[in-house]
C-alpha cells in the first residue's frame, strides 16, 4: 500500500523554474527588470508594473516568521499537531510553508524569529521548501 502523501504541486510552464530550483536545493524568486520589484508566486510578468521583462534569481533562503497556526486536526501526510506558517523572505515576498526542526509549540514558534530554508524531497519531481530556525 502506498504511503499517504501530502498534496503535491503540479508545476505549470510559468512555475517550473521554482520547482526545478527546489529540486536542485535553490529557492528561486523573480525580479522585474524594469522596476526591480521582487515577487512571488511565479508569474511571467511583473505584478507591480506589468512588464514582461523579468528574471529568475536564487534567493538567500533567509526569512522570518510572519504568522502561523498549529493545526491539531488530521491531514493527509502530516502528523498533528504541525505548524502552517507564512514566512517573510529576506527579499520581501511572503510564502506559506511549514516550520520544521523545532517543537511545534507556541513557545518554540516565536513571531519574527529568523529562519532558513531547507528542502524536503517528496518525489523524484518535487521537493518542498520548508523553513527551520537559524542555527538549529
Amino acid at each position, binding site marked *: 500500500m502506498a504511503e499517504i502523501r*501530502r*498534496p503535491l504541486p503540479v508545476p505549470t510552464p510559468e512555475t517550473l523554474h521554482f520547482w526545478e530550483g527546489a529540486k536542485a536545493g535553490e529557492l528561486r524568486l523573480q525580479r522585474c527588470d524594469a522596476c526591480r520589484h521582487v515577487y512571488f508566486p511565479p508569474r511571467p510578468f511583473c505584478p507591480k508594473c506589468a512588464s514582461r521583462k523579468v528574471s529568475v534569481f536564487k534567493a538567500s533562503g533567509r526569512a522570518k516568521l510572519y504568522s502561523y497556526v498549529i493545526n491539531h486536526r488530521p491531514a493527509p501526510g502530516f502528523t498533528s499537531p504541525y505548524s*502552517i506558517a507564512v514566512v517573510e523572505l529576506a527579499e520581501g515576498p511572503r510564502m506559506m510553508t511549514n516550520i520544521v526542526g523545532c517543537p511545534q509549540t507556541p513557545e518554540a514558534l516565536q513571531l519574527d524569529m529568523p529562519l532558513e530554508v531547507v528542502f524536503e524531497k517528496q518525489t523524484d519531481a518535487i521537493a518542498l521548501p520548508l523553513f527551520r530556525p537559524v542555527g538549529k
Partner: protein
Amino acid sequence: MKRKSVTVVGAAETTEMGNIPNLSQIALHADAALNTLADAGLKPSDIDGVATAGEAPTSVAHYLGITPTWVDGTSIGGCSFMIHVRHAAAAINEGFCKTVLITHGESGHSRVGSGDRRRWGGGGAGLPEQFEAPYGVVGPPSTFTIPWLRYAKKYGIREEQLAMVSVIQREWAGKNPRATFRDPITVEDVLNSRMIAYPFRLLMCCLVTDGGGALILTSAERARDFPRKPIYILGTGESVETPMVSQMEDCTTSRAFRVSGKKAFDEAGITHKDVDHLMVYDAFAHLPIYGLEDLGFCKPGEAPEFIWERNTAPGGKLPLNTNGGGLSYMHSGMYGMYAMQECVRQLRGIAPAQVPGAKISIAQGVGGMFAAAGTIIFSNEPP
C-alpha cells in the same frame, strides 16, 4: 448605485435550520425561494432575474420554473450574495429585469446533493494548489486563522479578548429561538474548548449546518405594491484581494474589506454614527475584529477592547451579529445570506433580539479566506 432606488420586498430563510437531512442542496434553495416568494406575495412567474452561488443560476431558474432576462452566478465565497444584491440593483436600474430572486441553500452538515463540495487538501496546478495546499491547509479552520497571530502580536491582544467575541455572540444567540447554540458560555469555556488550530479553539470556530435563505429585490417605485415594509438599499461595495491567504498585503487588515466598505459608505452618504446595527460575517472569532476596524468603526488595534467593553453586546451602542452569528446561530458554508436576512429582520422590526428603532443596518460579507468582500447598507426610511 442610486441611493434607495432599489428595495428588498421579500426575505426569508429555509423553514428548518440546522440539521436538514431530508433536503438536498437545490431543494434548500427552493425552500428558501418559496418562503421568500410567499413573503413578497409573488409567484415564480413574477421573477425575471435570478442570482445565486453554490448552484448555477441555470439550475435554480429551471428548478423553480423561472424564465429570467438577467442572471448572475458570481461565486466568490460567502459574500457572493452581497455582491448579487449589488449587481441586481444595477441591473434593475438599467432595466435588464424588474424583480430579482437571490437564493442560497447549502447542505453544509448533511452534505445531501451538494455537488460543489470543496476538494480541500488536493494538489494541483492552480497557484493555491501549488503554493499552499502542500503545507497541510485542510479547510478554513487551518487557513482563515493564519493571519491572527500577526494581528495579536502587533497590537498586544490576549487570547481572552479573542474568546470574548464568542462569548458575546452567544449572548445574542440566547435571544434567538432558531439559534443552534443558545446556552451561555464564559471566556474560560472558550479557552478550555478543544484546540483546533492554535490559537483557535473549537468555540472560536463557526458551526457547520444546513440551511438557506433568499431575497427578492425590485425598484423603489414598485415597492408600494408589495405587502411588506420595503427595505431600501442605501449603499453597496465589493472587492477581492487574493485567493491565497499567504499573499494578503497585510495580515492585520483586509484590503477587500476596506475597499468594499468605503465604497458602500461613500454610496450611502452616511457616517458611522448613523449606523444602528451591524452584521460582520464571523466564520471565526477574529472576523468581527477585522470588520469593525476595516469598516472604520474602530481604529486599528482597538476592536478587541471595543468588544471587551460590551459595545457590541446586548445593550451596547453598536449591536453586532444579533442573530448569534456563524459562531452560534448557523453557518452552512456561505453564510453571507444569513447576515443580510438579519439586517432585514432588524429593519422590519421583527428580529428575535430586536434593536429598538433600528433604521440603518450594514451587512459585511467575506469570501474565501479574506479573499473577497461585499458590503450592503440597508435603511427602512423611505427616500
